[in-house]
Each structure stands twice: as C-alpha cells, then as structure tokens.
C-alpha cells in the first residue's frame, strides 16, 4: 500500500500533537511507527484509522484522499481492522460473539455465516478452546489475539495496531507479535505503532520515526535501524536498545 501525508496538523488543547507532517511513503507492505511517548505516533495512526480528524492538511491512502466527514469516516473505518493496546473486546460478549458482532451488524453476514467465519478463524489460530469464554476469562495475550481475529474477520484493506503489546508481559508479547508476524507472512498490509524495536526491525519493511509532532526520519527499516541519521533517532535507539 501507499501513504501520502500533506501538511497534516493536529492539536490537543495546548499540545501540538502533529505539526505539518508532509511525507510520501512509497509502496510498502508493513510500516512501523516508532518514537518516544507523546511524540505524535498514536495520533498519526488514529488519523489513518479514521478515529481522529486532523485540523490541517489531508492524507491519501493508495492515492485516494480520505474525506473527513463522519459518514465517509464511518465507511472508512468499516474497511480497516484496528487493534488497540488493551480492552478491545466487549466484556459482556464471549470471544466468538465479539467477532460475530461486526460481521452481522456492520458487514451484513447472516448469524450463521458469521459464526462459521469466526469459528474457522478461531480454529486456524488455535483459539477454538476459548471461543465461548468472556474476555475476563482470557489472558491478556489471548484477548489481543481475539481482537486481531475480529479485525481480520472482516477482510480489511489493511490492519492498524496501536501498541498492541504494551499492556502485556514478555511471554504474551511474544505470543501476540508471533501472530502479527504470521499475518505479515500471509501478505497482509499493516501499520504498527510499537515500542518493540526488535519487532519493528524484523517485521516492517518501512519505518517512520516520529518525535515532537514531526516525522524526523523515514525510510526502509533495514537502513533506518542500521544507519540512523537524525540525532534524535540515534539518541532514541541508543536509549531503548541499551537494555
């Protein structure tokens, strides 16, 4: 997929979350967005997800400009799969029902088709035993995997992950990252905001480093991690890779 940002700006109260981000990212399959907390990477992802509206500028996805009226954004959100840090699932529904809900209510599946589709995905990703449990009965890693299944069940154009493992312990982190790597291996397009540099380096083919509301450096992941140019990025990598 391709992405193009043109003068994107977003402010929260006093804080300038994104300032005049202009950038064209050529064809990529998986894009990692890294950077310090509060630097604007989540805001950028949320704008791409259609969950936040920029105040200035516009973005194009695969050459098509994203309109920002609520109707267009709703339609946009329905074609992509977004997974957040935690609490993606609705606690009153079982894992399977969580996946079935958008299929039936948003994508026009019959109850039966939706259950079959969801059931097949659960079986394929070793979640069959958990299908009828409520989120509270699942581990954090299992919850995230179910959330990812919900995101891919609708056959999205691409997947967005907002720090999907930051609320998990290392073992569960590995479980979820393996899952995402597997999806990448299937050839799905994805964009991930992550603090996990090893994963970003391994799985993404393109990478953005965002700090202070600006894209400080962008490029092929292999180059960017090997030979960072921007002093902020050099500094950042030195810090996060120290331990």
């Amino acid at each position, binding site marked *: 997929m391709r992405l193009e940002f043109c003068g994107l700006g977003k402010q929260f109260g006093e804080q300038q979350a994104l300032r005049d981000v202009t950038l064209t990212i050529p064809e990529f399959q998986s894009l990692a967005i890294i950077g310090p907390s509060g630097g604007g990477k989540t805001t950028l992802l949320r704008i791409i997800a259609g969950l936040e509206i920029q105040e200035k500028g516009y973005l194009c996805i695969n050459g098509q400009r994203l309109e920002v009226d609520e109707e267009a954004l709703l339609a946009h959100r329905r074609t992509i799969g977004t997974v957040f840090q935690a*609490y993606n699932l609705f606690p*009153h529904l079982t894992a399977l029902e969580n996946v079935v809900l958008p299929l039936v209510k948003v994508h026009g599946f019959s109850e039966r088709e939706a259950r079959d589709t969801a059931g097949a995905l659960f079986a394929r990703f070793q979640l069959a035993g958990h299908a009828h449990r409520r989120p509270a009965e699942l581990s954090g890693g299992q919850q995230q995997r179910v959330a990812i299944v919900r995101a891919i069940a609708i056959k999205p154009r691409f997947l967005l992950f907002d720090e999907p493992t930051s609320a998990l312990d290392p073992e569960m982190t590995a479980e979820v990252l393996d899952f995402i790597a597997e999806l990448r291996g299937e050839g799905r397009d994805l964009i991930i905001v992550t603090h996990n540099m090893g994963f970003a380096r391994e799985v993404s083919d393109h990478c953005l480093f965002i700090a202070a509301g600006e894209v400080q450096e962008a490029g092929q992941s292999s180059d960017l991690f090997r030979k960072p140019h921007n002093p902020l990025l050099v500094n950042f990598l030195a810090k996060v890779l120290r331990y």
Partner: protein
Amino acid sequence: MKRLVTHTDGQPVAVAARVVSWLLVALLTAALFSFAFSQLQYGWNWDAIWQYRQKFLQGWLMTVIISAAALVVSLVIGLLTALARRSSFLPLRYLAVLYVETIRGTPLLVQILILFYVVANAIGIENRYVVGVITLSLFAGAYLAEMIRSGIESIRDSQLESARAIGLTRSQTYRYVIFPQVVRQLIPPLTGQFASIIKDSSLLSIIAVSEFTLNAQEVNAFTYSTLESYLPLAVGYLLLTLPVSLMSRALERKFHYAT
C-alpha cells in the same frame, strides 16, 4: 455452640448455623414485641377488622397495580432523562439536570400535592389514579435516570473506541454495547427501586387514591381500631417488598461478572 452463631470470612455459612442464628433473631424480636404489646392497655378488636378484609385486599391490589405501572413509566422517563443528560444540545441537558435535582431535592408529598392540585388541575387531568402513577413515575424516574446515567458512564472509553473502530454507528453502539451492559448492572438497583416505589405509593393516600394505606386509614376511621388497621398494612407491604429485595440480591449474584 460458637460455630452455630459465628461466620469466618471467606467460608460459606453452614445451614445449621443459618437456621440457629435466624431462630435466635426471630426469638429475640418476638420476645421484645410480645413484651411491648403485653404492657399495652388495649382492647383488641380483630373482629371488626375482619369484616373489612375485602377492603384491605382491594387496596393491596391497587398498590400492586399502581406500583407496577409506575415502574414501567419511570423506566421510560429515567431512560429518556439519562439520554437527555448526555445530549449535546445544552438546553435539553440542563432541563434534565433541573428535573433530576428538583425531584431529588423535594419531598414526594409536596410533589404529589403540586402535581395534583396545580398541574393536573390546570391541564385538565381529573383521574387521580393517572395523576398518582405519573407523579410516582416522575419521582422514581429522576432516581432511575441517575442510575442509568452512571451505568452508561461506567462503560470504559476504550469500549466506545472499539465500537467506533469496528464501524458501529452511534445507535448501534448504544444498542449492542452500552445497553446490554447497563441493563445487567441496573437490574439489582432497579428491583430495589421497585421496593421503594411500592412504599412511596402509600403517600398517594393524601390525594385519595384508594390504595392500601388509604383503605387501612378508612378502616381505622370506621372501626376506631388503629393498631388492628395498621398492623395488616405493615404485613401487606412486607409481603410485597421482601420478595422483591430477595430477588434483587439473587439477581445481583447472577449478573455479577468481572469486567
């Protein structure tokens, strides 16, 4: 013996302990009241009351009907008010605030009098039963609105965010995400509210709604047997409120699940 009257935290209460302790409480209460009544210089006249049993029964049934009607109407009012309080249209939101705070801050007695003698009179509703149900519903609706609102607000933002992300519309989010959870949370306090409505309906006696309390008052006026008129009243209300509050507790356990 000690094991029959004590409970250790985290352990289930043994059946024997339960029975013995309840018996003890019943015995103590009975002893206290038998003593109090035995000191009373009072000529009991249950025969006179027995002749009016039909009147008690009719009043009791009327209380059940009024309370049930008020519960349904107050739910609708409470729901609409809770939504109004969350409306982005400010006058509507403030109207809801004004309504809730006024109702919760004034006695039901005053509300009944004003609604019946002033408002209902002005707009031409003459049926006091209708006014009675409306007043009770407005009263309970204000409390329900706050319960429903806090229920809605207890739904984490992350869930609303997920609902948006999977492409649910606002009304779908209410229908499939918020309300099912709010209803579960609401059932226990709602049954408690029902018990309150049943007791509060007794105040409708002041506008001559022929419910349980008014009928008991009338029997008292006919027979001059005050205690014999009011004791059945207490029992009659307990017969209604006790099952409701036991049910409330059972439902609370049933709907309890971790989030």
